[in-house]
């Protein structure tokens, strides 16, 4: 069976086939046998040519969180990831214009007002989470088109706080 996964926004494919007690893995270049078992609901033991590996895994909707030998992976299933994957370049400017909190928290201060011109690295807002204040800075030069949150609001990292526009 063929599998596609997004890791760090890169698409990876792998084929995994059941063959008697083991699985045959093919990644396009090599084909080899692995012995793989759940040892608990969140841990997989993998034996490849006598080498023993332990992979910890947890699922959250379309995401899988993996930890193995000191490396952390966030893996997404292709359907869910495709939108983000396909978007590519146009995301970056949009991201810069729609200013979001880097983490869920509470708005402490909005440091700019609508129609105000902003420089690169100018502080736009201060968001607090877990008792630490974090300054959100502009990554572009332009002006404030719209302010979408007020001090005291709880914000997440998905919805914008401030909308910027470039000058032209």
């Amino acid at each position, binding site marked *: *069976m*063929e*599998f596609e*996964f997004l*890791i760090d926004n890169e698409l*990876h494919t*792998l*084929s*995994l*086939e*059941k063959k008697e007690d083991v*699985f045959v*893995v093919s*990644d396009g270049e090599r084909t080899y046998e*692995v012995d*793989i078992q*759940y*040892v*608990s*609901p*969140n*841990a*997989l033991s*993998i034996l490849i040519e006598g080498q023993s*590996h332990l*992979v*910890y*895994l*947890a*699922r*959250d909707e379309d995401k*899988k*969180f*993996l*930890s*193995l*030998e*000191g*490396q*952390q*992976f966030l*893996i997404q*299933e292709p359907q869910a990831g495709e939108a983000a994957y396909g978007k590519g370049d146009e995301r970056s400017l949009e991201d810069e214009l729609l200013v979001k909190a*880097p*983490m*869920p*928290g*509470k708005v*402490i201060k909005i440091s700019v007002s609508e129609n105000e011109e902003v420089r690169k690295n100018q502080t736009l807002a*201060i968001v*607090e*989470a*877990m*008792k*630490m*204040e*974090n300054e959100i800075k502009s990554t572009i030069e332009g002006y404030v088109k719209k302010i979408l949150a007020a001090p005291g609001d*709880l914000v997440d990292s998905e919805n914008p706080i401030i909308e910027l526009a470039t000058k032209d």
Partner: protein
Amino acid sequence: MFKKILIANRGEIAVRIIKACQEMGISTVAVYSEVDRESLHVQMADEAFCIGPAPAVESYLDMDGIIQTAHAARAEAVHPGYGFLAENAEFDRLCEKKNIVFIGPNSKALKLVGDKVRSRQTMEKAGVSIIPGMKRIPKDLSEFESEAKKIGFPVMIKASAGGGGKGMRVVHSPKDLKSGLEAGMREAKSAFGDESVYLEKYIEEPRHVEFQVLADNHGNVVHLFERECSIQRRHQKIVEETPSQALTPELRARMGETAKKVMQVSGYNNAGTVEFLLDKDKNFYFLEVNARLQVEHPVTELTMGVDLVHQQILIASGEKLPFKQEDLSQRGHSIECRIYAEDPLNNFLPSSGRVLFLKEPKGPGVRHDCGIFSGSNVPIYYDPILAKLIVWAEDREMACQRMIHALGDYVILGIKTTIDFLKDVIAHPQFQAGNTTTSFIRKHLGGWEGKKKTEEGLTLALIASAFDSLNKTHTGPAVNRGALRKETFSPWQSLGKWRIGGKK
């Protein structure tokens, strides 16, 4: 001895205190905010009461609410843990007034040492050396400006009620003073409910060495040696150890005696910590008293064979200290790593959310003081500390090795944590050489990028994900592996590269 104690805290420290009470045969009362209903301290306590909404000011900082709960539950004493009300003299005084024993210092001593500016005055008078800086809180900005000029930049802004790095900022030039003061005051206000800040000379590349002190209600005072807490980030300790590599036996004895003197002139009782800065030339300056159980208390416990929470409770109930200074000596070496819900790859931003999976490290000499579990929620409202990993070994070298392996054996999935970052701190040659100063992180791990993902790692991750996806229609795969095999590996899957619809 008390029959019932209310623990006015949450997270790992509430759990730690509940365990101590259980061992001493004391019933426990937990209090919790609306977002903490499912948390570990609520599960473990004998009784638990909701004391308000998520924001700490409306729950864990609500003095009247907590005292009413203590009365209603007939708790005789309150243990405040660290943070929240632990160093709030007003709460301490209120407890005294309402006939509840506050497990900590008396309110007068707490008020004195809790006021960083007043305690600086007191210590200077007693002949204890202090860091040059303000000895009173200025009224307006111009006073800060002139004082900063007098002290000389860089200066350190500190919260008068401070602790834990909150409200603290280094200001390198006059133009940054105003914004630094504003931010420091806001943070101080939200963390302690008091926005007073003051300025001190910023001592570059110091070591942070503190002494644990126990003082009973009968005038007996002992110190339980030092903890070195130089590994800091944003003025927040992240790794602590004892003994310190910087102290000679002579210096250790001198600092220990100074620590006892600080507590004596303050009229202090119960457990407390005297913090010093140690400069490059081994001069030490009194920094402040932490009038509470410290986050890093376990390293002292493991090297001293003394349970500090037990001692706090015994002292508060009127017992005399069971040992004298000459009975006390350290054995072996202990290191603690604080596990924070922060993303070390993204400027250490807090990472709230659901802990999808937790695997606790285990083994000889490994202790894990933990406030989370698989499935627990980490809210945005409180300090990001999740747990503490503490190791003990015969010597420092072995303690480092033990810590590195324990961190490697520690898995938290679902939120970002500092585990991998801490592993690289301990494994760093300069840490192993004992060259620990407060600028260690900035100097040696400033641009930390995490462990590079290897080809092999990537392949293993793909194999595991594919295998897991094959089985994902089944909940709880390991619970019933027999049934899983039968259903999962049906002929449909063994048909191989074949898909409905013929796509691909």
